């Protein structure tokens, strides 16, 4: 591992200040700055030499501030970015009122990792693409812009069938993000010049021609919390994850589903897909199809087809299109049948 400058932020404002100080306007070259929370992605990637930060700002001391709190109110759910995955997954209010959130967290990683990993870090976790994680492969546009994409013609079984480009088809690996995008969550972001709030859907960027630019965060900005609005569909929600082994594995295909039904008819459907796309993926076409219909087998299948109209396989991952549809069909039927 390369060495780095280590600093600790103890006050909420201090993190962005330290980040700004790491790159004074007079500096000739830019220092790479990373915030460190659970470290489950960053430390791993530093050992692999994929991440090469010059400066690490340890934000764990801020866990004892509002950044580490879960707040449930009539308006919705606020999750501090330094809440650990396990805390949110086990929170009784989250489990009962936002089951898709709790399930997406409890089905991810292992309990040791969930005890460590923060929610803010979780949504920013990097892809598991082998060609990205192994620096002995020279081609990776995400790690080394302009070098090519070895996955397009290589072993691409875990790769994305939605949202890819001819530069990158690396899958976004997270689960929690699918719950956030389905429930139209917002993200609070702090920077040196104040804070701003954006839709979670606008946080991640599709690879396009710049796969190395994964988010809309500006240099030095830090996620401080997630806001999930209360809505009639949050209780009838679930996360279905299909993977190569039953536990402690990334999704081959997953679906986050939330439904507002009356007399068996869908008023609102919220759907996101995981393990299948380059970014957290909301299936708006499937949502629109289901409005005003019942979730029977035929309608669920038609909604799933609508969700995958633009899907593209790359050989080894062709099966994920069918697997993704079946995952969504099952998730929709299970959500519709939930007894509340």
């Amino acid at each position, binding site marked *: *591992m*390369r*060495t*780095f*400058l*280590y*600093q*600790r932020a*103890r006050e909420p404002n201090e993190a962005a200040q330290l980040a700004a100080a790491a790159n004074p306007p007079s500096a000739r070259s830019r220092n790479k700055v990373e915030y*460190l929370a*659970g*470290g*489950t992605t960053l*430390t*791993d990637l530093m*050992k*692999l030499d994929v991440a090469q930060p010059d400066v690490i700002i*340890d934000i*764990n001391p801020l866990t004892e501030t509002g950044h580490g709190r879960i707040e449930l109110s009539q308006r919705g759910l606020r999750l501090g970015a330094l809440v650990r995955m*396990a805390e949110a997954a*086990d929170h009784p209010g989250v489990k009962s009122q936002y089951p898709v959130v709790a399930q997406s967290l409890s089905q991810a*990683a*292992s*309990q*040791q*990792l969930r*005890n*460590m990993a923060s929610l803010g870090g979780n949504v920013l976790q990097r892809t598991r693409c082998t060609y990205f994680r192994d620096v002995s492969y020279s081609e990776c546009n995400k790690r080394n812009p302009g070098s090519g994409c070895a996955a397009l013609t290589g072993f691409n079984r875990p790769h994305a069938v939605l949202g890819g480009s001819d530069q990158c088809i690396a899958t976004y690996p997270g689960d929690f993000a699918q719950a956030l995008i389905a429930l139209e969550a917002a993200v609070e972001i702090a920077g040196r010049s104040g804070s701003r709030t954006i839709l979670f859907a606008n946080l991640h960027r599709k690879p396009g021609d710049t796969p190395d630019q994964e988010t809309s965060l500006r240099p030095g900005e830090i996620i401080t919390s997630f806001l999930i609005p209360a809505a009639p569909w949050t209780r009838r929600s679930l996360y279905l994850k299909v993977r190569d082994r*039953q*536990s*402690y594995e990334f999704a081959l295909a997953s679906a986050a589903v939330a439904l507002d039904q009356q007399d068996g008819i869908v008023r609102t459907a919220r759907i996101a897909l995981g393990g299948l796309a380059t970014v957290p993926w909301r299936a708006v076409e499937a949502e629109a199809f289901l409005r005003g219909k019942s979730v029977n087998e035929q309608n669920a299948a038609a909604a799933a087809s609508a969700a995958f109209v633009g899907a593209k396989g790359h050989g080894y991952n062709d099966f994920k299109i069918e697997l993704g549809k079946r995952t969504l069909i099952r998730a929709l039927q299970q959500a519709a049948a939930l007894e509340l």
Partner: protein
Amino acid sequence: MTRRDQSSGTIMPQSGPDRRSVLMGTVSSAAAPVIARAAQTEARRVAPSTSSGKPVDIALTINDRAHNVAVDIRTSLLDLLRERLGLTGTKKGCDHGQCGACTVLIDGRRVLSCLTLAVTAQGRNVTTIEGVANDGELHPMQQAFIDYDAFQCGYCTPGQIMSAIGCVNEGHAENDADIREYMSGNLCRCAAYPNIVDAVKQARAQMKTASTQ
């Protein structure tokens, strides 16, 4: 240093040199308690250390003993335990957070020491496999692993036991399905999984009894 007493299976403090320390020759004397707990709590609030290349001083508690050591900023908690403090019970498996062999408790919560930078354990309470026995009496989870033959080669066992203690304390060991799910972060290539589930169930009952006494 610890060793297992061959006759009783008890984990005992070791006074003489063992194979590892003879081979290494450089195991530091850092196992000696250095500062009091109160001073250490204070240290957690004090200004952050910064370093680029230079060793940095950290203070932490390991198995109820205070330690003050200078480490390279890149040192993982796992390497601090094994290579600097001679606490080799915690095992290095994958070193990338995928196998669970390095599981320890920090402030009572099970975490992976291979993905924890030692510097971030500043001021924390770390419990390793060497710290769970009580005055030579095995922890109920250690005894249960022996009773149920919950291992073959034993390499994953310290991590399994630390994880299982965490699992019971979290309340995630109430049934077989939960034990399997919440112990999934600990891989056992000998596939002793059914016996591990049985061991966790026995220890769960004893740990509950102990906590209500």
